[in-house]
């Protein structure tokens, strides 16, 4: 086996087995910190040994066994130092053994623990990327533009709280599952959005590593919970959004709006997969949640070969459905954008002017307003709105686009 093959085997094992190894060890030792450290050591051992010894026939089994030995070594060392803590090292898994249902996967327990509502939202994101995604602390720190030490402390504090407050390592009860699952999906959607519209003056406008990671983790959840409509919806939404990524930023680094994108460069296979999921959900006949509706809206957009062929009445109808579910001002804003295409910019402007109090600090609100005012020929007002949007936007490609648009006003 060539060095490159071994390297690929290690990369693949990391992608496929990291969460499983951390989850198995957390279950066995009842301690996320022990599990994380031992998993990292096991992968380091693989990097050192596999090139000479060869890739083991069952890489996942090898990694779990190696990590288990590392964990036991660590616990022995600590035991010698603090004999009194011996008891604490025993697994505090005093639940009666649960019947192994279809969703009884260790990784699912891990995800629910990392996304526990008692942790701050940004901590849930960091912990999920570390424990489930296998990203390193420096990688996560870079992704969210915070210092490595800060991110390290955030994760350390979270692990300490999970242990001290005894946040359980289990899949929530059927009664709590919908709420808790929507918390997990929110974390994944946040990771995806940060990749799709990255914030910060020094960062790339789109960060495919983050969108890819979010999709990978959502796929994992879909494998574990194949019958959940919102999981399918979120996956479809991500795929149909990701499919447009190649057309999203121009060669000069400007954001390209949906109507101006080169649809030929969209990823056809991602679109096909997304459409398949949306059709599957429609066929189920079950009432859709917000991710399923958002996915359906994106399916309408990605079905049009040309922006002019977009079925706007269908888009507005879907937004009407979404507003009933989630009457938030951001949804109302997006609905107004579709209304502008159907009923004209004047109607849309009247709608969004009512959102001013709630969305005054939201860049997309001012960008939308600027565009509507431009279409209505109200140049002065449009320029002021572009200025406000440029000040509030944190994305370099969006700023470049808005600046050009403002400068084109006459």
């Amino acid at each position, binding site marked *: 086996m060539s060095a490159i093959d071994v390297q690929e085997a290690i990369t693949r094992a990391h992608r496929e087995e990291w969460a499983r190894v951390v989850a198995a060890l957390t279950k066995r030792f009842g301690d996320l910190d022990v599990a994380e450290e031992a998993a990292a050591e096991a992968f380091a051992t693989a990097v050192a040994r596999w090139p000479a010894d060869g890739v083991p026939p069952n890489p996942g089994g090898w990694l779990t066994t190696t990590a288990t030995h590392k964990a036991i070594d660590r616990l022995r060392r600590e035991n010698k130092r603090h004999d009194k803590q011996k008891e604490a090292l025993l697994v505090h898994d005093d639940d009666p053994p649960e019947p192994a249902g279809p969703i009884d996967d260790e990784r699912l327990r891990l995800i629910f623990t990392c996304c526990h509502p008692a942790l701050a939202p940004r901590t849930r994101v960091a912990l999920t990327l570390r424990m489930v995604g296998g990203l390193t602390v420096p990688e996560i720190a870079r992704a969210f533009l915070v210092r490595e030490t800060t991110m390290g402390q955030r994760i350390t504090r979270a692990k300490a709280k999970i242990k001290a407050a*005894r946040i359980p390592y289990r899949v929530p009860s059927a009664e709590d599952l919908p709420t808790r699952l929507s918390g997990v999906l929110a974390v994944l959607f946040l990771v995806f959005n940060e990749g799709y519209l990255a914030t910060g003056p020094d960062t790339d406008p789109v960060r495919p590593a983050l969108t890819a990671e979010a999709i990978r983790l959502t796929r994992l959840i879909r494998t574990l919970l194949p019958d959940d409509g919102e999981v399918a919806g979120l996956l479809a939404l991500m795929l149909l959004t990701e499919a447009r990524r190649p057309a999203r930023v121009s060669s000069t680094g400007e954001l390209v709006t949906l109507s101006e994108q080169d649809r030929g460069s969209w990823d056809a296979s991602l679109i096909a997969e997304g459409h398949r999921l949306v059709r599957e959900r429609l066929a189920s006949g079950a009432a859709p949640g917000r991710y399923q509706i958002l996915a359906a809206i994106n399916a309408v957009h990605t079905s049009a070969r040309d922006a002019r062929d977009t079925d706007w009445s269908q888009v507005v109808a879907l937004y009407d459905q979404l507003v009933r579910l989630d009457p938030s001002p951001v949804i109302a804003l997006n609905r107004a954008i579709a209304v502008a295409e159907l009923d004209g910019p004047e109607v849309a402007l009247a709608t969004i002017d009512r959102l001013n109090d709630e969305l005054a600090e939201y860049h997309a609100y001012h960008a939308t307003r600027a565009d509507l005012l431009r279409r209505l020929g109200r140049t002065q007002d449009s320029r002021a709105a572009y200025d406000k949007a440029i000040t509030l936007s944190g994305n370099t490609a969006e700023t470049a686009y808005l600046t050009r648009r403002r400068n084109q006003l006459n």
Partner: protein
Amino acid sequence: MQYLVSVIYDRTDLATPAEMAAVDAFNERLQAEGHWVFAAGLAAPDTATVIDNRNGEALVTDGPFLESKEFLAGFWIIEAPDLDVALRLATEGSKHCNRKVEVRPILSE
């Protein structure tokens, strides 16, 4: 495992009869289900006295150790197997006493 459920409030008025009745019923349930350890309501913060005797010369000060808009108005100590159970009980407790609560684990050996 035990958790301290602190009741947080920003006014010194006492619980209404309806709130008292709801808390009593909730306490009885905690006892029946084996979660009960202790519970108490506290007098207003300005009835507090702080003592610092760390160096052997007790310094006595009138008033709470921390002046703040919100303060500890009472507490439960509950027994729960994990944080999910503790949070569920605290969520009910907050509803019954009609005040905000904080859940904090009590250190154990």
